């Protein structure tokens, strides 16, 4: 067992013991308090934690997989029990004992991830499953911590809504979310992305033949990639009106420069030996462009396409702050913040994050398919 795992075990044991020491719940006026001993369920849970921690620590016959299973089950049973405790009498506030149990359950979850990583298979499709399961485990526990602490501390919904509230809001307002998604993502982002990356690519191929233009434009394009281009949003809204065209224009400008710089760099990525070979075949400029230099440029071009996939969404949403018809994710976010409907805001954020991740993932899938020969993609 590694040192970190031992530290985690010690921390689990300590916080389980703290759960006995601190008051479990306190009445709102602060005069009464209960201890863990008053609830058989919690008593069983914490003893279970201590047993699992002790077993993992002291039983050498357990395999890593068994340890992983034990800690996983313990942490999720803990989470379910804790969630069951919530939402009762609001005149009682949860005390340090409750949160000590929460911390112990979370640390058990962390330990489970440690064991999960340790028993990861080396290759094959099972490994793919693992590479999904590990971050998912972490993400689920993050949501659980959020849910439990927000509801146990009775944080007002105008500050931070619980994930379950956000989920309920998503489920109940799918139609609004879809209209906003359609306006912002499908109309503004996708069209702007295609136009921006397409024009960046075309300009790069055009200036590729002129070293003069290359040396003139590249430093400026490099500078432009570092500039706060979102700032042109108000100007674009003035020029192209409130509808999606102005947002697409912002996206075009934001995505153009990364694509230009990376494509120009990519076009010179093929080695001089390869270019000599094409020359000795008597290949024309276009032949060597399409058969050698563009394929060689693919990794760098996809680099830009991936950066742009996240930039585009940001650009479109920010542009909506400067004026928009009454649909759109940016519009919804700014108005719902004003109306203190934070669950709706978080619902839009969730949609944007999922859309952005899927977009990024789709671009990387295409990359795997197109540039499958590149060392960064090839499995060793």
């Amino acid at each position: 067992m590694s040192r970190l795992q031992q530290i985690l075990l010690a921390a689990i044991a300590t916080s389980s013991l703290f759960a006995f020491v601190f008051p479990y719940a306190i009445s709102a006026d602060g005069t009464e308090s209960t201890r863990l001993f008053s609830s058989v369920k919690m008593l069983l849970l914490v003893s279970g934690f201590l047993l699992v921690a002790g077993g993992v620590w002291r039983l050498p016959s357990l395999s890593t997989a068994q340890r992983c299973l034990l800690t996983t089950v313990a942490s999720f049973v803990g989470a379910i029990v804790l969630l069951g405790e919530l939402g009762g009498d609001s005149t009682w506030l949860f005390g340090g004992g409750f949160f000590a149990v929460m911390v112990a359950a979370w640390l058990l979850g962390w330990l489970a991830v440690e064991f999960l990583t340790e028993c990861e298979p080396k290759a094959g499709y099972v490994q793919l499953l693992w590479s999904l399961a590990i971050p998912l485990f972490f993400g689920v526990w993050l949501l659980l911590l959020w849910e439990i602490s927000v509801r146990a501390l009775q944080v007002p919904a105008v500050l931070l809504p619980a994930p379950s509230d956000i989920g309920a809001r998503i489920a109940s307002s799918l139609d609004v979310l879809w209209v906003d998604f359609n306006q912002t993502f499908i109309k503004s982002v996708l069209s702007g992305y295609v136009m921006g990356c397409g024009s960046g690519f075309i300009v790069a191929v055009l200036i590729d033949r002129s070293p003069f233009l290359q040396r003139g434009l590249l430093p400026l394009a490099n500078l432009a990639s570092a500039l706060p281009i979102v700032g042109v949003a108000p100007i674009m809204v003035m020029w192209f009106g409130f509808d999606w065209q102005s947002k697409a224009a912002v996206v075009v400008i934001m995505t153009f420069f990364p694509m230009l710089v990376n494509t120009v760099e990519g076009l010179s990525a093929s080695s001089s030996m390869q270019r000599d070979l094409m020359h000795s075949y008597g290949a024309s400029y276009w032949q060597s462009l399409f058969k050698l230099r563009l394929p060689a440029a693919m990794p760098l071009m996809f680099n830009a396409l991936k950066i742009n996939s996240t930039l585009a969404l940001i650009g479109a949403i920010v542009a909506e702050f400067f004026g928009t018809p009454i649909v759109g994710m940016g519009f919804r976010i700014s108005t719902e913040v004003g109306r203190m409907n934070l669950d709706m805001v978080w619902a839009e954020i969730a949609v944007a994050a999922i859309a952005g991740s899927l977009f990024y993932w789709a671009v990387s899938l295409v990359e795997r398919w197109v540039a499958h020969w590149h060392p960064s993609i090839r499995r060793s």
Partner: protein
Amino acid sequence: MRPKTDGWLSRVGPVVSVLLALLLFWYVAAMLLNSPFERDQNARNDVENPSGMVWLGAVLNQKRPVLPAPHQVMQELYKTTVQKKITSKRSLIHHSIITLKTTLLGFALGTGLGILLAVAILHNRALERALMPWIIASQTVPILAIAPMIIVVLNAIGVQGLLPKAFISTYLAFFPIVVGMVKGLRAADPLLFDLMRTYNASDWQLFWKLRLPASIPYLTTSMKIAVAIALVGAIVAELPTGAVAGLGARLLAGSYYGQTVQIWSALVMASVLAACLVALLGLIDSWVRKRMGLVT
């Protein structure tokens, strides 16, 4: 493809000529875009359209042009930087300093957070597997879109002033630092790792004497990217604060009142700020590289 005789002329010449072409293009575009308004105005007042230079002068000196001409932007910049006191609320320097403060605070926090995360990821494989996908996913969250909410919420729990805005910059800036540092902390030559092992170096010594020094060039390169996006974060974070102060606020105020010249001058100022910050970090980067013998 660089020619052997890489004099300053062959490097600066093309850039200057492209810049001049852009300037010319800007003037032509300003003329074309601003003409319809002038023509409408004259038709409404029953005035003959003047010809030649008079027309040109009118078109290029409108009060609220669709696209202000470069000299108008320069005039506005001169008026709001040199001719105004720095303490005045109309001084662009006053606003730039506010944005710069936010940027630098966010950048510093982001760099610190990024380095800490990178070190944690380096030392724990489980953390790497669990955390890295979320760090990448975190950047697909349009943080700039949540900026208003974060600022409102942080204000509600008593965090005020620079910090809420700086957090937006931090959120954007930590990402390139983590990615660069994780790469950099693993970048040392495997032979050197073997050498350290033969010296019986502890993990601690390995970290301080080999990994960290080897990662510094990666750090400075990432910082160059991070400072640029920290500035973007600071500008956008200033939008929802109700257009009080900062370059972002100038953008928003300009857009509310149709003051295009003001928008453009704020944009130019932001670009100058970005260029200075990136150039400064570029200098540090190349100094570090030279000191470490990475550049011949």
